[in-house]
């Protein structure tokens, strides 16, 4: 203990850390019947940390070329000690991270926490979710197996529908006209360099804003929060968050051990696409909706209309702190609340129905 004290003193003397600790010990987390929502941002952060750690371990053996990618992942899961566990944890943790991020985003939305002065926090969070989905999309191709190859072909093909810039975007993403080894190398670059760099910056901003502005208390819960004693951030909230993280770790370990992530067959660009090919679950709502749109609507390509609608929907969702003017005055807009529940119902129902094979 004496050693730790000496180390602390040395650091504090040089970096003036005492005010930070002072801030953390005096920081409080309000308590009300929806306080559970405060833990999902932290849980998402925990899974992100797991991703970084397991991703670095996978990098030690992974080779990002069309010739060697599949074999290197095969080597990881069959020959490298605990390689199967690291790969499985990486894949499961990616999915749990996106699930936790979705829960976090909807809880923030439905409790109206995006309202002024937290617009920047909402926007940075929105972009972070976009980056997480980008991580998922780019990482899905890296094992270079049959499913990932064809899912990437379909996914990247959608970008070609973008007016004017479509063909350029397609070539930029694929590194050519087709999904090839060049696409794999490029996706690897996005996955391990570009996206982590952007995420680190945005994450820093997001966390900094939360610390600076404190936790939001919804207007209708303000009275309850006033009557209940708030939690001290350090150590009470941090320890509770620790319990949630441990629970997340237990779920992750159980999934990785009982349901190891499948590797499938190596991608064959000359083979025909396997039947019933689908993207990752968090893209299903979009994938299935696009399938339901007729090939042409009023002479315009159906897929283009669908993608346009998703782009407009995404923009509305992004701009909701500005569009929902009532929220700035601490009031809830029934319209935006209904919109939130409607979007949630759409996402959940389309995802579940897709898993149940209702769209085949």
């Amino acid at each position: 203990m004496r050693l730790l004290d000496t180390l602390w003193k040395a650091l504090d003397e040089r970096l003036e850390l005492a005010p930070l600790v002072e801030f953390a010990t005096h920081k409080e987390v309000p308590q009300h019947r929806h306080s559970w929502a405060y833990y999902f941002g932290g849980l998402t952060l925990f899974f992100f940390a797991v991703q970084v750690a397991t991703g670095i371990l996978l990098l030690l053996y992974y080779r990002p070329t069309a010739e060697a990618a599949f074999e290197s992942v095969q080597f990881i899961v069959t020959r490298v000690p605990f390689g199967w566990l690291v790969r499985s944890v990486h894949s499961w943790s990616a999915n749990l991270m996106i699930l936790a991020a979705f829960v976090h985003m909807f809880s923030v939305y439905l409790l109206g926490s995006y309202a002024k002065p937290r617009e920047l926090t909402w926007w940075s969070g929105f972009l972070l979710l976009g980056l997480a989905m980008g991580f998922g999309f780019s990482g899905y191709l890296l094992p270079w197996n049959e499913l990932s190859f064809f899912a990437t072909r379909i996914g990247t093909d959608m970008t070609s529908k973008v007016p004017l810039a479509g063909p350029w975007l397609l070539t930029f993403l694929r590194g050519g006209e087709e999904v090839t080894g060049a696409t794999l190398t490029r996706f690897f670059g996005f996955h391990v360099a570009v996206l982590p760099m952007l995420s680190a910056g945005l994450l820093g901003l997001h966390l900094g804003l939360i610390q600076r502005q404190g936790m939001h208390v919804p207007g209708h819960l303000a009275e309850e929060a006033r009557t209940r004693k708030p939690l001290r951030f350090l150590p009470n909230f941090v320890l509770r968050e620790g319990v949630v993280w441990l629970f997340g770790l237990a779920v992750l370990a159980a999934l990785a051990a009982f349901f190891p992530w499948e590797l499938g067959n190596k991608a064959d660009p000359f083979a025909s696409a396997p039947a019933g090919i689908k993207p990752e679950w968090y893209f299903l709502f979009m994938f299935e909706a696009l399938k339901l749109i007729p090939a042409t609507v009023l002479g315009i390509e159906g897929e283009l209309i669908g993608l346009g609608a998703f782009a407009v929907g995404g923009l509305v969702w992004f701009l909701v702190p500005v569009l929902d003017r009532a929220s700035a005055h601490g009031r809830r807009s029934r319209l935006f609340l209904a919109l939130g529940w409607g979007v949630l119902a759409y996402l959940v129902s389309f995802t579940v129905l897709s898993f149940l094979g209702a769209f085949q």
Partner: protein
Amino acid sequence: MTPRRPGPACHPGNRGPRSTNDPRAAVVRLGTLAIVAVALGAAVAAAGPLAASVVGPPGKSAADRCTACHRELDEARLQAPALAVGNDTHHAQGVTCAGCHGGDPTSDEPEVAMDPKKGFLGKLEPTQVPAMCGSCHSDASFMLRYAPNIPTDQLAQYRTSKHGQALAKGDVKVAVCSSCHGAHGVLPPSDARSPVYPSRIVETCGACHGDATLMARYGIKGDELAEYKKSVHYAALTQKNDLSAPTCNDCHGSHGATPPGISSVSNVCGTCHLTQRERFDESPHKEAFAAIEQPACEACHSNHAVLSPSDAWIGVGQGQVCGSCHAAGDAGAAAAESVAAALARMHERLVAAEARVKKAERAGMLMEEAQVKLEEAHQGVVLAQVEIHSVDPARVETQAKEVLAAAGVADGLAAAAEGEIRFRRTGLFVSLAVIALAMVALILKIRRMERA
């Protein structure tokens, strides 16, 4: 089809007596046939350039007036050939109607175009067809202009066939070139729409050979088509789309179609099943079968209804093939028993190893190495089944040992995978216990802290 050499020699043949009951008519007809054959032979042998109006340059579609007029005719029988030329390979290569039918293809006047003096033959008699087609297709230097690799011995082969021999005797019911390839709208055999394309040839032959009444006059049962459709060969052709699967012409020949004799059966089957043939030739069965005039492969596997072979066939019991010649207690029955026992051992071990490997795969383990060994074992089983044709139990046993060894390795890998699964589950439970303990400790700590 033939680019005609116009001339009087081509005329006879499309006129003649029709009554088949009148013996005098038969004599006249045979005489006419002989004249036709001689005349056509002379025409074929005649040297000289081909009329450009009859056969155009290769690769350029034929231009003639025949099709233009016949398209406008009301009588379907006369209109149909003109409508069919769109697909016809000969027409596409510059051969006009006059190439086979004679006449003047440049004239719009029917009297001129179909003037017998200009070599017009009209509809060809079956007896005229082989020589007519052969006049081009047997001419190697002529065919070189169209398809350098095409065989030019079809006519010679046809004359050796049962069809050709019967035709030479005046039987006009037998197949001639147009019976299988079609007369108008002839497609290359490589075209999937051609009646001689592998997937369609069975029905083409079956048009006659599936007709028991017609076949009765030749002493043929007429059930060959139905029998063939039960076979593994037909299943491979139609279900797996395997165009290399044998059809009628692969065993009987196409132009020289004839049934293989008893002594030739193993040669015919052996063209594909090489090793089985080798083993059979080395076996004591070869001489024994020859002595009792038993066809080699057909004795156990049948001829047209070649079923998927089963290990259960080995033995002298009811429904087992060895029992046709051997009886319980003799040396053959003992060898069969020994072979059957080795096959059963292999299967038992292989099935058990496969089940264990599959179980490990279901539990999420990658079992690629085990799958390679199982594949090796499966190939070993096939080789052991090939060795059955040697009727030597020692050879089957040697192969069985290799199968058992490969299945044993796969089984060992599955056992190791099961151990790994146990280790992972134990590790998971230990980890979960540690995590749960940490959670409980944290909760207790929080409670104590908040109470204070």
